[in-house]
């Protein structure tokens, strides 16, 4: 499907959710209201006309150091690809600084679990109802979110204790029938 058709179609399906659109060097970006991201993503994945069967990446951005910036501080860009139909799409969600929470999409794509953990770890955006919102790249004792613009690049932290991982193992064992 062409970019314009995707936009039109998504507007029809979710008139409340679509806030705007932009062209990013030929790559369609659709701005979505944060609260409805999960239902929009579900449509994109399950509707055979969209068939976005892959979540390529999740990018978190902190705009607070941009000159003259008046919008919300954070944004998330969800990149999708359809292998069956060949088209690509990017969803953009703005996230407020005082309550940086967005619904999780980890139930729709298996890799969203880790990508959302990374966004939380690096940028401090939280994902409501995420099954295991822990840090991914940084140490579990780390304080702060390093990709925020107000985190100094020269800052160092002393981190020492091992991560036991038994909290995750407990969940996994229960799922396998071990009490």
């Amino acid at each position: 499907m062409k970019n314009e058709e995707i936009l039109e179609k998504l507007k029809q399906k979710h008139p409340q959710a679509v806030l705007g659109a932009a062209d990013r060097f030929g790559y369609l970006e659709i701005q979505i209201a944060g609260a409805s991201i999960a239902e929009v993503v579900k449509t994109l994945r399950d509707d055979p006309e969209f068939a976005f069967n892959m979540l390529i990446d999740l990018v978190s951005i902190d705009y607070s150091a941009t000159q003259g910036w008046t919008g919300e501080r954070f944004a998330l860009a969800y990149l999708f690809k359809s292998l069956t139909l060949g088209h690509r799409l990017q969803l953009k969600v703005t996230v407020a600084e005082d309550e940086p929470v967005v619904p999780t999409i980890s139930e729709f794509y298996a890799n969203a679990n880790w990508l959302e953990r990374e966004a939380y770890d690096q940028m401090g955006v939280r994902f409501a109802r995420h099954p295991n919102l822990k840090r991914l790249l940084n140490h579990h004792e780390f304080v702060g979110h390093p990709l925020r613009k107000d985190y100094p690049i020269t800052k160092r932290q002393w981190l020492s204790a091992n991560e036991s991982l038994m909290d995750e193992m407990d969940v996994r064992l229960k799922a396998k029938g071990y009490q």
Partner: protein
Amino acid sequence: MNGIDPKTLLPDTGGENSAAGLDSSRHKDRKDLVFVNLGPSHPATHGCLRALCALDGETIVAAVTEMGYLHRGFEKDCEVHTFQQVIPYTDRLNYVLAIMNNVGYCKAVERMLGITIPDRAMYLRVITCELNRIIDHLVCAGANLVDLGALTNFWYSFNAREKVYNILEKLCGARLTSSYTRLGGLSRDAHPSFADEVRAVLKEVKKSVGEVNNLISKNRIFLDRTQGVCVISKERALSYGWTGPTLRACGMDYDLRKAEPYYHYDDFKFEVPVGTQGDTYDRIFVRLYEIEESANIIEQALKKLPKGPVMTDDKRVALPPKQETYGNIEGLMNHFKIIMHGICPEPGEIYDFTEAANGELGFYIVADGSKNPYRVKCRPPCLMNYAAFHEMIEGGMVSDAVANLGSINIIAGELDR
């Protein structure tokens, strides 16, 4: 046996180690499990990765993974360096295929700047990228086979790899961290004997791939260790965002060089090897066949390699020739503008991608009009592979987990950034 029935030496008393004791339908009790850490520092993990495995006997019943041991803040570092200075950092992402990372990053920024690089630069980028793909697959297959106990293959594949590295060393002065590209083209042109040397090395590469193939393709031990082991379904692989050879091993005919071609890839004739089972065996063999296809692409590219410059003449990114810098004021100013003020794309955001040896290598770049990128997000293909690792090894043996880890080719430099 001196008249002794061997069975009497090990009487089956119905105890915990007897056949009846291993019945899977018995009550599942955590007290029967042993928890073992695979990694983070272990020769078979080829980098710092950790998987905590719950073992029942030698079977992994549950596993969870941890990453981040090699996290060094690549994305944060990019924000305090100029667009040009980021290039050497990309070498260190997946250090096996540095030029592919250079190309992936430069292609994104060049598109942002609206620059088309000269044809000769494109062809040389294709050739060096495919040489990198050969290196990556030789390293991956060779190291994977060592993990399976097949050491001989390692010498065959690493000998050939060494010869490819010799070419890259002659081309750009470095073996691993090459930083070969510049925004707008390449750091230097190929030497006159380049084409002949590459052709000679390709022969050696094909020979060693053939030798590896001969050693393993009918080897009972290898087949038993890899076929039907750590299988992932096509649907699951897609849901995990797998790309590249690991996805193709599951039976998906998807290659960005064919699906969304760049740099004249649509002009080359080559096949995309596809597996059927999504097991360790398919992942190894897809890579081995891809080496031959890469060699085909390189031969065609060498034939078509056009003459001309390897750097664009766009004054926003290309340093003027030295006689201009020293000879006239415009050249001098141009030189200093680029060095002191840097290369400044217009404010905007771009996502661009290339088919690296491991899959889709993407860069999401935000520019704010200054000389530094405002935000760089790298999409490492092996992050998606590693996210699925725990699921694949559950139900298998510890030794299968090690074999599988090699076949999904996790490079910690890229995984942890």
